[in-house]
């Protein structure tokens, strides 16, 4: 049934058994962005490829959460090879199956409910929060896609929408910062070599005369005639289709017996210079800068997956905490915890008394979380209180979603391990008593903080330990 103000079949309402406002858009010019928040999901018809991508970009480039987090599907009966559409949309469908669309809408809704509103401030990077929230609500990694219009030849579609597409450096900095702050884990995808001046990936690699920089070169084999010891470029020997020695006029018949080719010589046509070791130069086709190979910027592209810290930041951006922080009474923020950990490592270096750190994580999956509904928040608060009550005042605590970090200054590893095992058992009992329908495992991991410890690797090891537990 068409809505009266949406004209013809340009925007078509999709009937379904679920009470959801799902529309199919065929004429993209008729789509009114102001009404986007009213829809539960939008299906874009891929018949107009250009229009489809443009609208997709327009929706995702918005900074209004109810717009950019809108579930969008692309309808196409043919396979779409455009990775950008794959990244920006929530899936390509070849027919309208409302069941799967509905379940996706529900999933996004549950996730969105967890997102806490925040007031924009200079401390908060709204681009970053948008990335985190998009990734969090979709449980989706951010992947770079090949794009010949992008300066580096690749782009992260969602990140690219928010930044000047010609400023590759800004995109690189944004990603590096997000990974360094621990919001994303990075899995290697590809390595790029970019212009040292403008970060462009459109480079022309060429061999040049090391003295004149001339690129108009030709190469020739050097031939050594064994009989008379003449050695010179192949052109000295070529007579029609034969090789004839210019010194002794003998015909060279058999390589390895009459002659060999011990090297190659480069000839610069412009300067008439001969040399063997040309220089490799890289001309940037974007800014014209001539780079040395060593002067290129090496840039790795990663698949970016949200970490627990990233989820935490997505739900409530650092610097936006207000009254809600009181819920985590007894805990410090993850960023502050990181600072404490750094100080602790420095302290251990000077005192030579090792400390320990533990991580406790109840295995509450998103399914359990969905099933628990409002009870979930209550359960987490109970676990938080349990951890606070089972630690001493000297312990420093931080919470990241359902991960509990416990820094135990001047505590040997075995003591820390014992304490964590004890807490793990007690927490397991507590969960068994509170959640009857699910068997929730509790995982724990401990690490020692020594003078040689490195902040990031301690936290990484700790997380890795959880996976093995």
């Amino acid at each position: 049934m068409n809505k009266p103000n949406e004209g013809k079949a340009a925007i078509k309402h999709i009937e379904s058994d679920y009470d959801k406002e799902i529309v199919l858009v065929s004429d993209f010019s008729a789509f009114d962005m102001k009404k986007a928040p009213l829809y539960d999901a939008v299906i874009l018809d891929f018949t107009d490829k250009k229009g489809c991508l443009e609208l997709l970009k327009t929706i995702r480039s918005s900074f209004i959460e109810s717009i950019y987090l809108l579930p969008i599907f692309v309808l196409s009966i043919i396979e779409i090879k455009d990775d950008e559409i794959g990244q920006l949309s929530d899936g390509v469908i070849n027919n309208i199956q409302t069941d799967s669309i509905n379940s996706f809408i529900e999933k996004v809704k549950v996730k969105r409910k967890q997102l806490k509103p925040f007031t924009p401030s200079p401390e908060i990077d709204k681009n970053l929060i948008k990335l985190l929230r998009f990734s969090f609500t979709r449980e989706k990694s951010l992947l770079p896609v090949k794009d010949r219009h992008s300066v580096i030849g690749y782009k992260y579609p969602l990140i690219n929408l928010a930044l000047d597409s010609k400023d590759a450096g800004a995109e690189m900095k944004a990603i590096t910062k997000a990974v360094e702050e621990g919001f994303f884990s990075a899995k290697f995808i590809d390595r790029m070599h970019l212009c040292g001046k403008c970060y462009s990936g459109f480079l022309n690699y060429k061999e040049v005369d090391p003295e004149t920089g001339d690129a108009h070169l030709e190469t020739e084999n050097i031939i050594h005639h064994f009989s008379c010891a003449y050695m010179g470029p192949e052109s000295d020997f070529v007579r029609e289709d034969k090789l004839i020695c210019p010194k002794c006029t003998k015909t060279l018949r058999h390589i390895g017996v009459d002659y060999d080719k011990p090297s190659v010589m480069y000839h610069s046509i412009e300067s008439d210079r001969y040399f063997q070791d040309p220089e490799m130069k890289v001309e940037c086709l974007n800014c014209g800068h001539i780079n040395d190979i060593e002067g290129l910027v090496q840039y790795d592209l990663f698949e970016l997956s949200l970490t627990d810290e990233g989820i935490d930041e997505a739900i409530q951006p650092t610097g936006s905490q207000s009254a809600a922080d009181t819920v985590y009474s007894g805990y410090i923020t993850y960023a502050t915890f990181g600072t404490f950990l750094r100080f602790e490592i420095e302290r251990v270096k000077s005192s030579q008394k090792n400390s320990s750190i533990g991580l406790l994580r109840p295995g509450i999956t998103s399914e359990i979380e969905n099933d628990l509904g409002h009870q979930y928040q209550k359960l987490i608060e109970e676990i938080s209180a349990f951890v606070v009550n089972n630690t001493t005042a000297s312990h420093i605590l931080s919470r990241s979603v359902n991960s509990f970090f416990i820094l135990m200054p001047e505590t040997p590893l075995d003591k820390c391990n014992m304490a964590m095992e004890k807490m793990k058992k007690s927490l397991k009992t507590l969960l068994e008593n509170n959640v009857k329908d699910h068997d929730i495992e509790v995982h724990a991991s401990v690490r020692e903080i020594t003078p040689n410890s490195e902040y990031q690797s301690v936290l990484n090891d700790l997380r890795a330990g959880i996976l093995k537990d």
Partner: protein
Amino acid sequence: MFIEYWETFVLYWHDKDTLEIIRTFWFFFILELPRFLLFDFIIVVSVIFNRKSIDRKRQIARKLLWAEMPLISIIVPGKNEGPHLYKLVNSLKEQTYFNYELIVVDDGSDDDTPLIGRDLEKNGMIHQFIRNDVRGGKASAANLALRYTKGKFIVHLDADTSFDRDSIENILLPFYYGENIGAVGGNIKVRNYEDTFCASLQAIEYINSISMGRIVASELGIYRIISGAFGAFRTDVIKRLGGWDIGPGLDGDITVKFRKIGYKIHFEYKAIGLTNAPTTFKALSKQRLRWSKSLIRFRLKKHSDIYLPGRNFSILNFVSFLENVTYDVILNILWWLYIIDIIMHNSQMLAVVIPLKIAMYMAMDFIQFSLFLALSERARKESKLYLYIPAMVFYNSYYMRFVRTLAYFKEIFFDSSYKDPWNPAKTSVKALQNKL
């Protein structure tokens, strides 16, 4: 006992008249003294007396050289010469003559030479560094350098040679004061003469036999070997000749090729290059076996047409070869007969005759060395070598003659030079097939 011996010695002299003495030491008095002392004396005296005139000619030549200031190409072929390259480059940087291009050919080195060469090339200290991954032999490496030269003259060097500041300038002068000069040989001396006894003896040998011999041969117009360590060539002529042929002994061979087409060869004793001589007798023997074998190969085999009358016959070339073969081959063999003759005819007096013979050679070496010092630019320094002169008779008369005889025997009967690892087997096989 010494008094008895002395009496016998005096009596021997008293009893013999001059002819009998000459009969006994006929090899020395008839064959060696005139060639190695008389000629030296005449030439040195002539050079000293004509010094002013020679200096004038050199001055004019120097003006002509600087007026033209041609580009010259210095070529350095070799294998595993990397460690010497930096010193060589620095030695050349100090030269008074600076309009040169330096081309180094690395003939399949298996050490750090490619890295060193490329580094020097990148820093502009070598104009062209050419690297062959596969070894081809010294001749082919020199020919490859020759192919890319642009200079009017080619100066061929060994990488371990260093030079007096005016050496390059001096080696070019003969092209400007001599007529029809195709190539000029530099004067090679031993740099490491203080290292070992063996090196000290070679230092005297280089002065007495090699340098002195070449001054004389050059003045007589029969100079026939330009040292590979330091020689200059007219580029147009050497390219016409097709460059160097397969060695060992390619330096002597290229000189003969110049002579055969009518060019004069000059020895420039003021163009000084210093090189390291072998420090052990084992290494020295190996080097000299190679040199002597090449004499047979090139003088008696490859260029045997020099002896035959023909269109290109030249009396000077004939004399040059004849003198070379006579003094280095025939007399070397004759010397063994001379020894037998002395033993047979003086069996009772050997205790007197042998020391006497040795004393005569010592005296000749002493005079010859003194004559050369009269011309030498570093006479004071070289005068230290007087101490070693007494040993030269044993070095020249016994050790060297033995090495040479062995080399001639091996080369004449077994073509031994074609098996020398100094050249890669692939080229030696071809050289033997083609009798090169």
